[in-house]
């Protein structure tokens, strides 16, 4: 573990010394209020995501906390990601590696890692990737003489198809997306979610957004049933940093 920390520190140091450019920090604080078939009424959660960008590289880290949820776990999930942007021809692309840890129960947890590529155009965004999920039994459950410690769901398609009313430079935007990826959660490829998002630049360093998520179960079985709905509101702050 110490070696990994040293390597990460060295990598960051090399990155910082190599690029004579301004680093950028982005903080994204959000709150979710919603209902689902597993939430036993309304649930409330909050999350903080931080992104540190240096030239073409970005490191992301975030944590989610449940304020009102039947799982009774305050710290419910964490996400780490590293990405690099590049261009092919005139098209900007971003490739990202991510890792998600979901701390759902005292008996088990979920880890999910994967790779994704993002292509943003004037009005469209396409994300495509693969993820690999592992449901793991905690040691605490070992007293049950547990037979199987891990269940793996490999090669799950990660996707996001979004349409934006405005181009990215505009101070406000509205988008509609069909995706199986949210912060701290990637669903199976056959469980798409709908997200209607509105965002607005309120100052040179601050943006606010509101998202409406609808989750439909079984739609690809042609037997669509309501699963859940939630509203997310958030604040993105990009402080003047590294001057």
């Amino acid at each position, binding site marked *: 573990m110490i070696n990994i920390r040293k390597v990460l520190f060295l990598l960051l140091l090399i990155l910082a010394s190599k690029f004579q450019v301004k680093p950028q920090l982005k903080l994204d604080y959000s709150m979710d209020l919603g209902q*689902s*078939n*597993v*939430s*036993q009424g309304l649930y409330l959660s909050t999350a903080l995501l931080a992104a540190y960008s240096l030239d073409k590289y970005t490191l992301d880290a975030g944590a989610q906390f449940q304020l009102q949820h039947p799982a009774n776990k305050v710290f419910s999930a964490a996400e780490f990601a590293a990405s690099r942007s590049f261009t092919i021809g005139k098209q900007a692309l971003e490739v990202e590696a991510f890792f998600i840890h*979901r701390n*759902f*129960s005292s*008996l*088990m947890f*979920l880890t999910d890692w994967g790779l994704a590529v993002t292509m943003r155009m004037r009005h469209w965004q396409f994300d495509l990737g693969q993820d690999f*999920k592992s*449901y793991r*039994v905690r040691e605490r*459950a070992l007293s*049950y*003489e*547990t*037979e*199987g410690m*891990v*269940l793996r*769901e490999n*090669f*799950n398609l990660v996707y996001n198809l979004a349409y934006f009313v405005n181009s990215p430079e505009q101070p406000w935007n509205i988008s509609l997306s069909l995706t199986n990826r949210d912060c701290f*959660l*990637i*669903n*199976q490829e*056959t*469980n798409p979610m709908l997200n209607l998002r509105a965002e607005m630049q309120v100052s040179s360093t601050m943006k606010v957004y509101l998202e409406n998520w609808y*989750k439909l*179960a*079984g*739609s*690809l*079985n*042609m*037997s*669509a*049933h*309501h*699963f*859940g709905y939630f509203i997310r509101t958030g604040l993105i702050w990009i402080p003047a940093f590294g001057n």
Partner: protein
Amino acid sequence: MDSRIWKLILSCLGLCLSACQLIDPRGFIVSYESADQRFEQSLSWNDQHPHSALMSSLENYEIFAVSDIHVGGTTNLDLFLEQALLNQPKAVFMAGDLTTGHAEDYQRLYAALPPQDSLSIFPIPGNHDLYFGGWKQYRPLFGSSVYCFSIKTPEASDLYICLDNAGGTLGAKQLEWLKQVLLFERSQYRYCVLVNHNNWIRLRRMAATNPYVEELEVLLDLCLKHQVDVVISGHDHERHTAVFGNTRFITLDALSDTHPTPSYLVLSLSPDSISYSYRNL
């Protein structure tokens, strides 16, 4: 090829399938009834028709399970029922996708089933059974899609819980009911077996839908907490098994006439263990 030609071909194909009543496109967007409505109707039927415990005079007994019969055709179903009548398992589970949802297929299925006193059959619906308003056909014939019963041996008693996740989710009310059953009743029984249609674990890539990750987390946690022994599912049309904690997840082959390797599950329960095998038709 021009994208407009592709769009035209796909639209024509969709219209043809819809017109032939092979698919029910409405189901992409909305169901005929909610999971909670089916659950409430099932509980109300259960209140009027409570399941009595099945008795086994021996400590060792077998149960059979099939899935994805997709009547239309009944050739494989007839073969299976012949073998079941011959072997006399304590119970036969039909884990969903019994039909295509059409009224005439429900009637064909019902006509193929043996008299109730010759075999204890426990059906549950799958997603196909809900197509074209199929619940309205299922309910008068089978009454309930969510129920539990027990099998008593001279020394012990085993709990069987049949669930309706045909819509890709149990729904809030059924999930709560399941939690209560496991919390208050599980400890009174030796083994606990759950039967439902949609397989929980996505062990291979497939076009069909499984439960949401959030629901799967709750279900896996319940299985760990309450020591569920076996979860039987269909839906995938291809057999596979997995173990998580002490729970064995068994997915069945399809029994439909078009399936190349139809089989059924034999679950053998004894005081020491539960074993299983797939028996090819």
